[in-house]
């Protein structure tokens, strides 16, 4: 299993990086840390490339390398038990250019589970390009960077599951909030949540929301199945059934001390573009980290 972790800068991406490392450890997944820097316009590329090649001769490296170096050193501290990572060294001369990206070769880390990548361009486009190159199960991103319609673009256009670690504070004790309904994606999100809960010993709550007072058999059945699955894996779970507007209820219930885990919407892409979806609206309105499972 492989995860993609997008960072923006050493100033803002500390919590995202740590959250990404924890989640990838929970799944024993490979982690590709990618920094997406600014791409200059075509007319400017020639002089810039010439200048950057010359700067490298003075040991002044491509902008963005320092962010990767910071991420590398942080990961060494976050994952002290990763011996390959601990013994590896960051050498800017070991950057290789391929597939319109810069890839850091970590020479002493054969089998190391961490990769470092530098890309330049528009964030969503570059993440999509990176996701195309390998089979990624999850993209982890801070959520402070990006486009005008960030929530929609992240959920709609990234072909993997997405964890948006917005407002994540690792000093805080989070509970996992699994949003359960009768969709196919709920099953996957419960499995995803269970893996994290098992490793990190986080408390789990399931929440099922109906617009009317009556909960159909699909909803209540899904909630029971989720509970059974979690208990089968020795994960204690609290169940909640609430009535009201789903998105408002999710946001009110989650406050800022839950990590929301929910399945992706089944609506068509066009409908999502014009009217949004529950994950998109929840992401827009809440201040807590959200994992949208596809």
């Amino acid at each position, binding site marked *: 299993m492989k995860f993609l972790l997008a960072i923006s800068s050493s100033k803002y991406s500390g919590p995202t990086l740590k959250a990404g490392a924890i989640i990838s450890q929970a799944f024993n997944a490979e982690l590709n840390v990618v920094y997406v820097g*600014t791409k*200059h*316009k*075509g*007319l*400017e*590329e*020639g*002089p*810039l*490339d*010439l*200048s*950057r*090649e*010359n*700067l490298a*001769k*003075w040991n*002044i490296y491509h*902008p963005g390398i320092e962010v990767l170096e910071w991420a590398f050193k942080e990961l060494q501290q976050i994952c002290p038990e990763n011996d390959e990572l601990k013994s590896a060294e960051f050498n800017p001369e070991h950057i290789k250019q391929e597939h319109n990206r810069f890839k850091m070769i970590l020479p002493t880390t054969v089998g190391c589970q961490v990769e470092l990548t530098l890309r330049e361009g*528009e964030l*969503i*486009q570059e993440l*999509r390009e990176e996701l195309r190159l390998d089979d990624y199960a999850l993209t982890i991103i801070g959520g402070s960077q990006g486009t005008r319609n960030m929530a929609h673009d992240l959920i*709609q*256009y990234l072909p993997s599951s997405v964890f948006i670690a917005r407002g994540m504070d690792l000093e805080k004790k989070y509970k996992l909030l699994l949003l359960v309904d009768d969709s196919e994606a709920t099953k996957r999100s419960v499995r995803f949540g269970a893996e994290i809960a098992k490793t990190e010993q986080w408390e789990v709550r399931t929440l099922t929301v109906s617009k009317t007072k009556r909960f159909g058999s699909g909803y209540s059945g899904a909630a029971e199945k989720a509970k059974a699955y979690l208990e089968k894996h020795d994960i204690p779970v609290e169940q909640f059934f609430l009535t009201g507007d789903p998105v408002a209820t999710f946001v009110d219930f989650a406050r800022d001390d839950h990590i929301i885990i929910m399945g992706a919407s089944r609506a*068509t*892409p*066009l409908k999502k*573009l014009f009217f949004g979806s529950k994950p998109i609206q929840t992401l827009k309105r809440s201040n807590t980290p959200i994992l949208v499972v596809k």
Partner: protein
Amino acid sequence: MRISADMIFWLQQKRWLLIAFSLGAVLYHFVPGPTGLSLEGYHILIIILMTLILILKEPVPLPAIALQLIFWQVIIGGSTPNEVGSYFMNDAVFFIMGSLMLAVAIVSQGLDKRMALGIIRITGNQTWRIVAGFTAISAILSSFVGPHMVTAMMLPVALTLIRFTPRSGKSSSGLTAALLFSIAYGATVGSIGTPSGGGRNVIMMNYWAEFGSGSLSYLQWMKMVYPMVLIEIPITAFIILKTFPPETRVLDTAVRRLLVEVAHAGKTTAREILTVALFALILLSWMTLSEDYGLGNIALIGIFLYMAFGLVSWKDLNSGVNWGVVLLFGATISIGVQMKNTGGAAWLAELSVGFLQSVIPNIDALRAVVSVALSGIMSNLLSSSATVAVVGPVVLNLGGDPILLGLASVIASAFGYFTAVAAPACTIIYSSGLVKAPDFLRAGWKMAIMSVLSLMLVALLWWPVVH
């Protein structure tokens, strides 16, 4: 048909391409051309409008923009494929191609370390002298070899000084901004000094020849424009020092550590001597032989010699040159010529003059204002060379002396001080991440006023004497 997320994403990414082509299609099919403009001229202006949108928003890569410029000229511009091809490649394009190759050949030799030594020997370690020295050296070198090559060579020197000065490597640092802007603005100010200072200068020379507007030799150009460069150098250094006052008056430690860094370069090698000697030969040929053999042709001879002496490999040239730029300028010049041939340039010139005639009744002053304003504004949005390629034919149709108006337009196109995209030198220092977009505005407006006043001074007092 089910529209997938990928399709929606593509539409979102390419919306400016769709907007540009849709606008072009609507204008072509449904909107009649204005009176006084030929149908071919109208179609050429539609192509230019679409291209400007594409260059500004870049929804497709730069070479693709160049390609559409070529095929539209044949499909709706009324030109034959061979006609477009014949305008596409000329001495100006040879020069742009040759100067890009020369930059790769020279920068790869590591001469910047020797240059750093030379500059520091002249300036010493006082900050204001280093800033003034950087401005002067960047301007003088850039006037002969172009700003991007100079900036590429000077930037590591400045960044090394910044790195070795405590508390300077921040965007808020006056020293950082002063050193970086001294290179960028110095190189930009200098780039107008000789025809070889920038692609736009040669593009204008090409238009003069193509439109039968007269000509200027390399030395005549220098005689007319170089005094302006010399006036601007000290004022530029003064503006930079006042706008970004350095926190440190003396760069003692940084200079010492720079000299240690540079000392590793060892003794001057035969290769380096040959590199400089060949460039001196090219420069001399530009000055004395360019009227007969062409600036571009001489640049190509220089590249041939660099390759023949093994100073640069084709692999390095191939990977180091942005061929998309060569394609774009070839295509832009060809449409510039079509603008003139179809009457589109004359119509635009009349429109600009008519628009401002009530404000500025004196026709000579009006022509000067139109050429300077058009070039100065557009160069802050596009690039200076692209500006001259598009605006040049319009300016040369304003009436009056095409040499003087052309020069004024070329000079004004170097007034791209306000944004990081206007000049390659500005882009390069901006990409270091140590100066921010507002820094360009802080110093840019002062530079723009100073440059306009310098241009007026030279145009009113010096040009009547020498032209």
